[in-house]
């Protein structure tokens, strides 16, 4: 025994014999990853990471090969060719519960059930361990191909780890079972590289925010460091000046984050949003004089009111070509009135539907829209918008000014009706 241990260089676990046969602990969930293996231990709730050489030894540890055989196979490919490295690692792995002896009582397998795996995937994802969540999510859908919830989750996780094709296939599976989900229908257009629609459908928006509303602010402000309203306000401050008596229209007001940033400059604040759930959040904030549930294009086409300022944050990301919305908004502005909004900054002109289902916009498109609608460009700032999958998303903060005239329904300039708005 002593000779064997000395021969094998073991100092951690008492080896019974160099002919002992290790195998991967059957309770573990093992999956190959880009840099080796990961193995989840559901009993001790911990995760093992194995580098490539360790993964190879684990693979060879099938309960039929002895330590000596494994050393003979692996040592020649290692730079130092030291058997102790292999045997030490096996000893440590036995201690850590990664490996067990083939003949030990603990070697009885107890696989994770599909439901346990599904829950583990959710937990790993919530803990930010997306790579492992991806592996577990993949196993979940293999085990439960009819679980549409698992396909949805796997689509999201696959997207998180940059596996676009797998994400598309997973969302497609989910959508086949849930053909009324407007959000995924819209997302699939992007993932299939199809020609994008002019804007996300009402059904898609309503579906997104029905699910998102309960955690919207926690996720946007807390997790994603969303800076849209503050940055838009910063961009607009130079033209707002000291005025505190503005009539402000908040397009796509959502939960009222934008209204909250602009309320101190408002004599009256009107909010429009398509989502019932988000409107209720805005109402609970108690800062809006009026709140209406409507699709903003339709509202702008049919309403007659005019405002000193129109703001829109995190809303025009659901629109492709912005020309129509800018033209319609300009008709609701008093002379010298301001249109301030944020969009995601795009690198492809004029705009692009991204894999997240949101559109981003090139600055040239914003300029073209402004000029085409007869609006004066005050500012187009670039800066941080929010985080996404751990990366910063860049935003455009746009401030346009209505020239000294009003527009009729067709957007044609006509005689000024209101007192001129003088920026402070």
């Amino acid at each position: 025994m002593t000779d064997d241990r000395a021969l094998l260089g073991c100092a951690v676990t008492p080896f019974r014999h160099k002919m002992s046969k290790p195998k991967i602990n059957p309770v573990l969930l093992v999956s190959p990853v880009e840099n080796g293996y990961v193995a989840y231990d559901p009993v001790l709730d911990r995760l093992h990471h194995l580098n490539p050489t360790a993964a190879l030894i684990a693979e060879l540890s099938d309960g039929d090969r002895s330590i000596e055989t494994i050393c003979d196979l692996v040592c020649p490919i290692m730079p130092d060719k030291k058997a102790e490295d292999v045997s030490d690692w096996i000893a440590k792995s036995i201690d850590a519960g990664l490996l067990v002896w083939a003949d030990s009582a603990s070697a009885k397998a107890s696989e994770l059930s599909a439901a346990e795996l599904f829950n583990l995937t959710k937990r790993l994802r919530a803990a930010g361990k997306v790579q492992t969540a991806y592996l577990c999510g993949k196993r979940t859908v293999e085990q439960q191909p009819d679980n549409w919830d698992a396909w949805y989750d796997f689509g999201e996780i696959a997207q998180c780890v940059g596996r676009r094709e797998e994400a598309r296939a997973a969302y497609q599976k989910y959508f086949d079972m849930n053909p009324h989900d407007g959000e995924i229908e819209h997302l699939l257009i992007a993932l299939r590289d199809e020609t994008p629609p002019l804007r996300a459908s009402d059904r898609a928006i309503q579906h997104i925010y029905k699910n998102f509303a309960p955690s919207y602010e926690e996720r946007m402000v807390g997790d994603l460091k969303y800076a849209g309203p503050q940055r838009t306000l910063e961009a607009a401050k130079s033209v707002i000046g000291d005025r505190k008596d503005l009539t402000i229209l908040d397009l796509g007001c959502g939960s009222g984050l934008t209204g909250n940033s602009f309320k101190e400059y408002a004599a009256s604040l009107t909010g429009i949003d398509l989502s019932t759930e988000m409107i209720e959040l805005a109402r609970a904030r108690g800062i809006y004089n009026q709140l209406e549930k409507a699709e903003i294009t339709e509202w702008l086409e049919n309403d007659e009111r005019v405002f000193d300022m129109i703001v829109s944050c995190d809303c025009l990301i659901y629109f492709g070509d912005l020309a129509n919305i800018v033209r319609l908004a300009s008709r609701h502005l008093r002379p010298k009135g301001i249109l301030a909004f944020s969009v995601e900054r795009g690198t492809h002109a004029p705009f692009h539907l991204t894999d997240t289902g949101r559109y981003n916009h090139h600055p040239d498109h914003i300029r073209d829209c402004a000029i085409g609608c007869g609006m004066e460009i005050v500012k187009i700032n670039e800066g941080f918008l929010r985080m996404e999958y751990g990366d910063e998303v860049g935003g455009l903060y746009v401030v346009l000014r209505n020239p000294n005239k009003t527009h009729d329904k067709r957007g044609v300039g006509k005689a000024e009706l209101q007192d001129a708005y003088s920026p402070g």
Partner: protein
Amino acid sequence: MAEHDLEKVLAQISHDRRGFFRTLLIGAGAAAVVAPILTTEALAQKEGEDPGPGGKCDEGLVVSKKTGKCIVPKKKAPSP
């Protein structure tokens, strides 16, 4: 590393894993083959750790108002 040594060991593992290990051990260059390393991490949140996404702690822990870290909630003293 001699290629025949690698092929010898790869011949011992299941067929569907050979390509994976070949990429893993050769694809990243010679530096990929080093001593085996095992690292283990506990998944359950421990007292004193930062809250997870959404600012929440795992079940059984709460966010401390003082430190912002996860702590075991104090039990109220039994009323007399």
